């Protein structure tokens, strides 16, 4: 009763939900009001609304999510070693090939991924040419699996074959590890599906010269602190997915001293160090497994609705959620990227969204940190204000703010992290991703870059499955 009396004696302060004409009349009367542009929750889907209502205020879910983001934030990844995949990646064997994105069979794979697999088989010496490679695959000889299910991640095609050297990242807070190949550079490279002699030769060089050298250098160090580099790089205009200039430079600065202490000849040293120096995206292949190691530590918390993986295989986009199964993927057809094309290429040339690099956005960097990386904006075809808006929007769908990865242009606010599937459904806001575009044909390379969103269906399926799994015990 007294609440109504309170209302009569206070100034009216109104939230207008729906038709904005009512707000205009409130403005005329100088009444303080906010316009809430309402859209049907969950796209109007009744089942989803039910699922949402069941868990949106749940204390169990809230607590589980807090635990998840605590783990992600506390994780501390270090680069400790580099070694061949077959020696370090659990479950890896001589005839196994890992790929990016959710599980997929050979017949469904897209051009660049096939090209890369063929290249990998040739590199391994299992096939002499393309036709032999295909015969091997169609004969059922080769086992495929998502890198993400093997504590690994790979950019673009993301192909990891047994002999390839992979960076070994250790999350010293929780003890788990993550793996990722060495970034080959730009141009004709395996990850875009190229498999010419040049590509294979380079891969061999990485295996026989670069990796052993880096291994020696790392052995002398106590591990390179990737969390610290990422944190600094975000203050230097990188977002650590498409812009890695600063982070690569910082890494170079850290590792060079150890290289100088090894017994490499001057020639070898120059080659190896030059390889890092000339590759602006070297750090991407460290940023990704660093994020992976943090997110893996947060997977498997009952009742948590935090997304622990976002990945694409060129055909489908898949996500995994902490409170649901390790191998439970929620997939839907991947979107096409919207952005700028390099001269000579158009929309028709692009492959759909591809790669595990969205693990960075899952971590709260990459596209989420766009607001602090205005340079990326020109590259992906937008305005500085747009970049900032995107970053700000992400706070609506995440659990917390990571002060370790703060964004200068947002007054050093901690970056949004811990994507919550409930909030994505409730607000209709999808996570934003900055990414490059591959040519749909194998081996051509990158044709542009831009912004893409995951398909909403992934989150919808995940929420419905979450409801099925937890509705008995819902609070």
């Amino acid at each position, binding site marked *: 009763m007294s609440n109504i009396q309170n209302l009569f004696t206070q100034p009216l302060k109104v939230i207008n939900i729906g038709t904005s004409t009512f707000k205009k009349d409130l403005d005329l009367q100088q009444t303080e009001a906010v316009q809430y542009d309402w859209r049907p929750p969950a796209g109007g889907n009744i089942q989803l609304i039910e699922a949402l209502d069941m868990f949106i205020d749940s204390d169990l879910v809230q607590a589980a999510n807090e635990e998840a983001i605590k783990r992600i934030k506390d994780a501390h990844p270090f680069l400790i070693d580099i070694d061949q995949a077959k020696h370090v990646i659990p479950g890896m064997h001589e005839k196994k090939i890992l790929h990016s994105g959710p599980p997929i069979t050979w017949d469904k794979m897209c051009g660049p991924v096939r090209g890369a697999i063929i290249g990998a088989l040739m590199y391994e010496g299992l096939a002499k040419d393309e036709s032999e490679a295909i015969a091997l695959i169609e004969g059922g000889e080769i086992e495929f699996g998502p890198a993400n299910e093997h504590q690994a991640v790979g950019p673009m095609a993301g192909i990891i074959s047994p002999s390839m050297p992979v960076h070994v990242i250790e999350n010293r807070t929780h003890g788990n590890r993550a793996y990722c190949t060495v970034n080959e550079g730009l141009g004709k490279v395996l990850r875009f599906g190229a498999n010419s002699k040049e590509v294979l030769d380079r891969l061999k060089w990485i295996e026989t010269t670069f990796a052993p050298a880096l291994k020696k250098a790392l052995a002398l160090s106590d591990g390179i602190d990737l969390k610290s580099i990422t944190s600094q790089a975000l*203050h*230097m205009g990188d977002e650590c997915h498409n812009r890695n200039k600063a982070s690569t430079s910082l890494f170079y600065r850290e590792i060079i001293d150890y290289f100088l202490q090894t017994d490499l000849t001057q020639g070898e040293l120059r080659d190896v160090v030059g390889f890092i120096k000339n590759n602006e995206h070297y750090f991407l292949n460290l940023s990704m497994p660093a994020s992976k190691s943090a997110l893996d530590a947060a997977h498997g918390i009952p009742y948590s609705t935090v997304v622990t993986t976002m990945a694409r295989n060129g055909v489908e986009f898949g996500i995994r959620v902490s409170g649901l199964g390790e191998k439970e993927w929620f997939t839907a057809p991947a979107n096409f990227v919207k952005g700028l094309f390099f001269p000579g290429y158009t929309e028709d040339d692009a492959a759909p969204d591809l790669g595990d690099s969205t693990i960075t956005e899952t971590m709260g960097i990459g596209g989420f940190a766009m607001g602090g990386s*205005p340079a990326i904006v020109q590259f992906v075809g937008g305005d*500085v*204000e747009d970049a*900032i808006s995107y970053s700000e929007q992400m706070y609506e769908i995440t659990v917390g703010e990571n002060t370790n990865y703060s964004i*200068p*242009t947002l*007054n050093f606010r901690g970056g949004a992290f811990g994507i919550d599937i409930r909030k994505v459904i409730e607000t209709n806001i999808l996570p934003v991703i900055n990414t490059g575009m591959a040519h749909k044909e194998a081996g051509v390379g990158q044709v542009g870059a831009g912004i893409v969103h995951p398909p909403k269906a992934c989150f919808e399926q995940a929420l419905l499955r979450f409801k099925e799994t937890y509705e008995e015990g819902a609070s």
Partner: protein
Amino acid sequence: MKLTGKQIDWGLKRFLLGQNIGQMIGQVVSVYQRVINIQLTEADRYVTLAKSQVVQTPDMIKIYEDDVFNDCVKHINPSSHVYLIGYNTLMIEDVVIDFHHAELWSGRFIRYPDHNEVTEQMIKSLKTFLIRKGRTQGILGSYLAVINQPLPDPLSLHQDALKDRLMMFKQWPTLDVMKQFVGLGIGLTPSGDDFLLGLFSVFYYYHSSEWQLIIEYKDDLLQYMKERTTPVSYHMLKQMIYSQTNDALKTAIESGSDMKLTDLEVFLHIGSTSGTDMLVGVLVGLEHMHRKTIQGGMSDGIESDHREECLS
């Protein structure tokens, strides 16, 4: 939101070029209807962001989009951080200020006259203008009282005090007397300070001995002003001591005897009485210079203050 720079002080642009991109370079200290003041962190300077029709001053960026500025004013608050996010781009909250193509402006007086002559004509036109159109609520009221001109209203407390000082200055044009004007009067830039701005600009332009004195005791004078008046006034006078001033004053003084009515009318739109107060300073300065000339002649390059013929 985006604001595009229309005109920028070259000294400011040069300063910003030397800063690191991504850095916070200052904080908003005050927000007014036509102007936003920013205190720089690395230097003792006030940067002003102003609407398109404001008279240009040193350390100011004028923008094109007045209506957008009005919106910005509503949600930029004092203590908001100001960032340099590009070689020619600033950011405050969600407002981006791009001055890539802003015209460069300099507040330095460019012309040095061949002979420093202040004519009676100049003084007469300026005086007539002030009597006819000047705003009397500031130091003009005091000046008119001194020359026994009829006034619409009785003098206020501050005007009375200013009148005393004007009379003192006429007798003893010393640094100590000039200091008595600092911080005195109403308005955000007290009338006394605006008066001094006008006065100093004349001293500077005509290479008077008073100017040598000001330069000699510059540090002491600056410290005194910093403690005794508002930050806006302080920075305005500081810039003058470093030989730079606003567009209106610069134009008016440089035109010498060619001073046009339109040049003078601009002053009526500076602040409420600030512009008029500045012109009073100019007038008093010119009268002072002229007095020195007629008293003993300047053809030998020595000011008459130092000559025996000096009568007062």
